[in-house]
């Protein structure tokens, strides 16, 4: 018996496709890159899609916008294997893996309640990043976040 294969989300003409997102993290990816419904782009999300390499994965497609790599690298905090495809006229014109930045500012909340960044001061959280395993060290209070980083997203 043959299984009929269908595309879960249709191809896009222009825009950005974020593939190989860790299963269940698509909504966090959208939060991190600051995609809001009000900006008018069509955004498609597929969650828990079967993947040869990953078992299950999420995919996000943003139509009509080519996001820059600096904006997208932040995704690596929660999905280090994510790949980015920039699409023009239905063709992939560039494809790359996200890369963890050396510094993360204003995306993750410090988990130390006594940290100055968790107060009324006009200061954004700031972390230096070490890779493999991912460890964030608060620039202000020195506390370390190494697990459940998605839980600390602002």
């Amino acid at each position, binding site marked *: 018996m043959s299984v009929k294969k269908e595309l879960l989300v249709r191809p896009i003409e222009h825009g950005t496709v974020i593939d190989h997102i860790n299963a269940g993290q698509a909504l966090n990816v959208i939060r991190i890159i600051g995609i809001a419904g009000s900006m008018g782009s069509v955004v498609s999300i597929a969650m828990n899609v079967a993947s040869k390499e990953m078992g299950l994965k999420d995919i996000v497609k943003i139509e009509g916008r080519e996001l820059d790599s600096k904006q997208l690298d932040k995704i690596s905090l929660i999905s280090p294997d994510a790949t980015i495809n920039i699409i023009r006229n239905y063709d992939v014109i560039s494809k790359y893996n996200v890369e963890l930045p050396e510094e993360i500012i204003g995306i993750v909340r410090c988990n130390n309640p006594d940290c100055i960044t968790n107060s009324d001061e006009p*200061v954004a959280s700031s972390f230096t990043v070490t890779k493999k395993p991912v460890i964030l060290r608060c620039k202000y209070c020195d506390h370390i976040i190494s697990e459940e980083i998605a839980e600390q997203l602002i």
Partner: protein
Amino acid sequence: MKDFTREMIDEVLELAEKLEPFARGRPCRMLEDKLLALLFYEPSTRTRLSFDAAIKRLGGSSIDFGMVEASSVSKGETLADTIRVVSEYADAIVLRHPKEGAARMASDYSSVPVINAGDGGGHHPTQTLLDLYTIKRESKLEEIDIALVGDLRYGRTVHSFAYALSLYGVNIYLVSPPQLQMPQHIKSDLVHRGITIRETNSIEDVLEKIDVLYMTRIQKERFAEQSEYLAVAGSYRLGSEMLSNARENLIIMHPLPRVNEIDASVDATSHACYFKQSFYGVPTRMAVLVKLLEGKI
């Protein structure tokens, strides 16, 4: 403090030694045109007074906002705004604040140097420097055996001190009740830096083997039950009768204030060093001010 190199620390300690006669009262005009702002958001006796003494012994002067309740802080002004304003008044700012990382944030907003005089449970680098200076003056800094006693888990000042000591190749004994032991990641860091660490929960175990005994306060609020606190605090009380077999040149230090960790009978022994240690805060902080404000010796 963890990022300080040995060269940086040695430079401050050597300068402190040169400045000690001035700390004791010899007239000095090294920083006579300099104004130091003392911003203390939390109570402090020694740190505040010794910074004030340090700038004045160097011929400079100080300003402060007195009690926090009487300042703009009580009207809800942010630390960032206060720092922006005060950095236009003074040549350097000394800051103590209850939030960790406050001094680092202040330095982002300040046009003049900010000295961290304690940020909550965070860092207190000038305390570490004065502790090292005390050992240098009253004992020696290299190849000694030192015991750190008391709350080694939450007291981050003691963590900074241990990191700084590791630059000098000392042997460290960690003496604390099981619930207040030094966190594993700090112990691993210290071992990685090539020093020997031994742990025990009894002061008596180490008293005959050490050159420096560094006592700290065990805080009541770390214990769920008052009875548990009393039992632990009682077992970390040092009396003069315990010192009969101690090394002759043992020095006993304490950042003060003490509650009952060191019995008053110890004060009269040749080992007691904690009041000298308090004094050494003045030349050490003078050295920091001279370094930051580029005073000429």
